[in-house]
């Protein structure tokens, strides 16, 4: 079974996107709490549009930013995306890579930040940022390591989210195999009914499988 086909069938049964969004949200909230930071966000790279999209935000700014987009080459997040390396900056204003304009448009300009790429296999899926740790806490390499662990978790969640979205668009009727996803969802919906319709449908499908 192709990767997409698996996803399509799975999505029909699970309706997964919401769960993965909750997982991303939980990751930024835990990251913010552990680093005692003012805010933390996850950006997803939309490759087709070449834009970074706010997928999860904890702390300053939060909800209103979800879905907000900006060009993928912008600012610190853009640099981290391209270099595929984490970046720690104690004084963003002094850093020429920082885009004040983009930060101001979010309503929160941080003093310092840590940003880490979300790497999955050979792809860069997005960026995780932690903004304004306590100003008296000197950055340590142990924090970089911890940030890397969060990044790994966030990358897995982003990958799942993207799979779920591809599956959703197949479910919405896009692509050749959309019918399979609709079938899987319809079968799932009949799970609680005792009228034998699910068994009948399954027998029909088995017959179809033999024909194919």
């Amino acid at each position: 079974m192709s990767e997409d086909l698996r996803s399509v069938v799975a999505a029909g049964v699970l309706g997964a996107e919401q769960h993965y969004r909750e997982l991303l949200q939980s990751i930024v909230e835990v990251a913010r709490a552990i680093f005692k930071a003012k805010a933390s966000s996850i950006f997803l790279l939309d490759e087709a549009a070449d834009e970074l999209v706010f997928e999860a935000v904890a702390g300053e700014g939060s909800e209103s930013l979800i879905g907000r987009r900006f060009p993928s080459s912008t600012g610190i997040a853009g640099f981290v995306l391209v270099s595929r390396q984490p970046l720690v900056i104690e004084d963003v204003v002094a850093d020429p890579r920082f885009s004040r304009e983009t930060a101001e448009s979010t309503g929160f300009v941080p003093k310092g930040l840590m940003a880490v790429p979300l790497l999955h296999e050979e792809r860069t899926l997005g960026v995780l940022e932690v903004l304004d740790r306590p100003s008296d806490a000197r950055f340590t390499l142990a924090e970089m390591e911890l940030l890397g662990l969060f990044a790994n978790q966030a990358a897995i969640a982003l990958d799942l989210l993207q799979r779920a979205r591809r599956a959703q668009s197949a479910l919405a009727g896009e692509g050749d195999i959309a019918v399979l996803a609709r079938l899987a969802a319809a079968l799932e919906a009949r799970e609680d009914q005792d009228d034998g319709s699910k068994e009948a449908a399954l027998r029909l499908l088995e017959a179809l499988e033999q024909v194919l």
Partner: protein
Amino acid sequence: MTEEPLPAWSLPTDAVERIALPEAWPGRVTREWAWEGATGAGVRVCVLDSGIERGHPLVGEVQQSVAISIEGDEVIVDDDDKAGDLCGHGTACAGVIRSLAPESELVSVRVLGAGFTGSGAVLLEGLRWAIEQGYDVINMSLSTTKQKFANLLHELADTAYFRRTMLIASAHNMPVESYPWRFSSVISVGSHEQADPFAYYYNPTPPVEFFARGVDVEVAWLGGGRLVCTGNSFATPHIAGIAALTLSKHPELTPFQLKSLLYLTASNVGDGT
């Protein structure tokens, strides 16, 4: 790339004298013997990166600036690149090397564009070109995660090793596979948190072999400026600078000997002197 003549694969008794080493090492190797008092004079260090800004006060003179690009199937080498540094990263590395080895020759081979953009193919061709020039040290504060380049980079790293070019490469800052720092023919560098530019540690649990200063390092940046940066990118030129000092005092060293000497003089080996 032209190969050097193959060495003999065996050692007849009457040939032992012919492989006598040009210099006897003391029974106890110290930093004083290895590199203290050296300036880097006579050592050619290549910074394979985003370019080096000309006239930066922390860098000084750059002896040559080269840019590598690929158009179609053709590799283009501009050996008089006037673009300087498009990103800041290469200038930062060059400044660290110069701060440790002030009289070393610096050559910039630009394989990255603005905002750190670049392709694995250009990186590979830049490295190939740099090895052909026979530089003593190549500082590579970058890596690629693309598996398809791994074998070619491995071959290049070994070629450099046998041609007496010491490739000094940054480990990735996250626990991911990337190249060429993973190869044993290079010196791979990670960061420690101390402020001493001459503190370096041997890591008995590789793949990262050495740790050097890489946290809150004040480096040269674009426009003659400075920036406080953290990362293995900035630890690597510390080792490159110390390697340049060592080679200026002991120019006959092979990469194997240079690596051994760095081990023997590491802060956590012997009494750290």
